């Protein structure tokens, strides 16, 4: 009977908190959006599922061994942890919620060495790191996951359209206004007393405007890991909603005439140009922004493997087995950051609001930049391809094409929009490097 009691008091039904229920609902909603609505399913299926797993009561899948030990709060365990975490507690004291809170706080503030010691002690008492906690540490904590995804994206990217018309890179630069504009937006919310943000948090939120999943995860893992869940969900959700977000903005900022502009066919690009281009980007990184080296280095490496033609088996693996494996665990790891106590916070609402602003601002900036370039250049470009500069490859380029076809059924903008589209990836990575350089 005592054992039955153990099972019952350890069950989810007995322990579940309202926040966890809400988060499980949010996880199911993400799965619904991914599966039925096709919202970036490759990431949102693992993220949504991971989010549910992270909120299973008592399972502690997203917690470290020490956090699990603190949660269960046995006096002798806490007494052992007290030494490692420099908390005043001995085993004869009652374990009140305040004591638990003190330990949790001390663990959050602990140094690397203290964390290691506390986790070791907790393991000696039979507690283990949660599965999702381990995934997060290995894949995101080490920053290796987003970088491998970026390598795979590089191996899938064709820079041909960009090389045929390099000046469209400026559209990819302009769209990064979405990033910095959002930082400003977060600062405004803070100024207005509506939400609190530090500059690190504001910058991490801003990266949503980069419209690039791995970059968002990388930057937020460096600048504000506690917001990673909300930022990644926001980034992927809005990327999926690009076909809804962008067209009204694009139409509002352009005339029917402009939307009908027909662009001349792109010149063919030689294999040599494609091979050397990633090296040119790399050299630019070497000379001007070493802090973008991990992201852009891996991206260029992936692209070089793709184009050089002599390592097809590596390129194939980078585009398939490797990126798929990492995607599974990256998604689950992001899900681990959807724990109720971290996610259900006014900041999350702010992040979701700012995210859509970010996409809108980036879209507008891209379109306006294209119009500005038309003022200064003879060879006109269709301003609709400016919106593709936000990245969200290849969705944003497809949106440009679709809106273009509405204005002129003979006008295929897809290839022209691919240039700013991939330039937007580079631009976001550069912006990420600048923010990491200046803030961390």
């Amino acid at each position, binding site marked *: 009977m005592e054992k039955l009691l153990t099972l019952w008091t350890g069950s989810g039904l007995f322990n579940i908190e309202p926040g966890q229920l809400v988060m499980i609902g949010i996880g199911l909603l993400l799965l619904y959006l991914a599966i039925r609505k096709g919202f970036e399913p490759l990431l949102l299926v693992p993220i949504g599922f991971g989010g549910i797993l992270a909120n299973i009561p008592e399972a502690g899948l997203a917690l470290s061994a020490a956090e699990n030990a603190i949660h269960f709060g046995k006096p002798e365990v806490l007494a052992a942890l007290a030494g490692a975490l420099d908390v005043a507690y001995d085993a004869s004291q009652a374990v009140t919620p305040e004591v638990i809170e003190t330990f949790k706080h001390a663990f959050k503030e602990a140094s690397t060495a203290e964390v290691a010691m506390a986790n070791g002690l907790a393991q000696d008492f039979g507690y283990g790191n949660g599965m999702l906690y381990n995934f997060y540490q290995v894949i995101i904590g080490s920053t290796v996951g987003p970088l491998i995804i970026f390598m795979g994206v590089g191996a899938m990217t064709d820079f041909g359209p960009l090389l045929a018309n390099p000046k469209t890179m400026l559209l990819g630069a302009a769209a*990064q206004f979405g990033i910095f504009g959002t930082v400003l937006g977060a600062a405004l919310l803070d100024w207005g007393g509506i939400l609190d943000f530090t500059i690190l948090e504001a910058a991490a939120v801003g990266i949503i405007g980069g419209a690039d999943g791995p970059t968002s995860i990388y930057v937020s893992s460096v600048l504000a890991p506690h917001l990673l869940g909300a930022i990644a969900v926001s980034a992927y959700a809005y990327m999926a909603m690009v076909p809804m977000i962008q067209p009204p903005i694009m139409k509002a900022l352009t005339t029917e005439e402009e939307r009908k502009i027909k662009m001349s066919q792109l010149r063919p*690009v030689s294999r040599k140009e494609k091979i050397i281009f990633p090296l040119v980007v790399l050299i630019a990184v070497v000379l001007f922004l070493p802090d973008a080296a991990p992201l852009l280095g891996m991206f260029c490496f992936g692209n070089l493997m793709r184009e050089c033609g002599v390592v097809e088996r590596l390129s194939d693996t980078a585009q398939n087995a490797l990126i798929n494996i990492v995607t599974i665990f990256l998604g689950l790891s992001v899900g681990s950051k959807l724990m109720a106590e971290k996610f259900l916070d006014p900041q999350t609402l702010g992040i979701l609001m700012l995210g859509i602003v970010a996409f809108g601002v980036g879209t507008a900036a891209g379109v306006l930049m294209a119009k500005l370039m038309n003022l200064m250049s003879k060879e006109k470009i269709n301003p609709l391809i400016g919106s593709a500069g936000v990245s969200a490859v290849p969705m944003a380029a497809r949106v440009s094409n679709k809106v273009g076809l509405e204005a002129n059924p003979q006008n295929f903008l897809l290839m022209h929009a691919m240039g700013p589209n991939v330039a937007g990836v580079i631009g976001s990575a550069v912006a990420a490097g600048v923010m990491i350089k*200046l803030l961390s």
Partner: protein
Amino acid sequence: MNELMSQAVDLMIVGMGFVFAFLLILVFATGLMSRLILRFAPEPATPAKTPRAKPKAPASVDPDTAEAIKKAIAQYRARHRK
């Protein structure tokens, strides 16, 4: 304007400036690279979009053959990957 605001404004100015500068340099470097290659090492050009990574479905395989092949591949995979 509090400190966060001024930091954000600073970040925007420096950040956007740097992003533009970096991509402008890249525009010129890329153009230079292309011209150098075209002058010193020209090659028979390929179309702007190489379909290597995601080959499109060709129209010329009739559905029956395609079906037969698909089955054969399935057969092959079933036997070889088990």
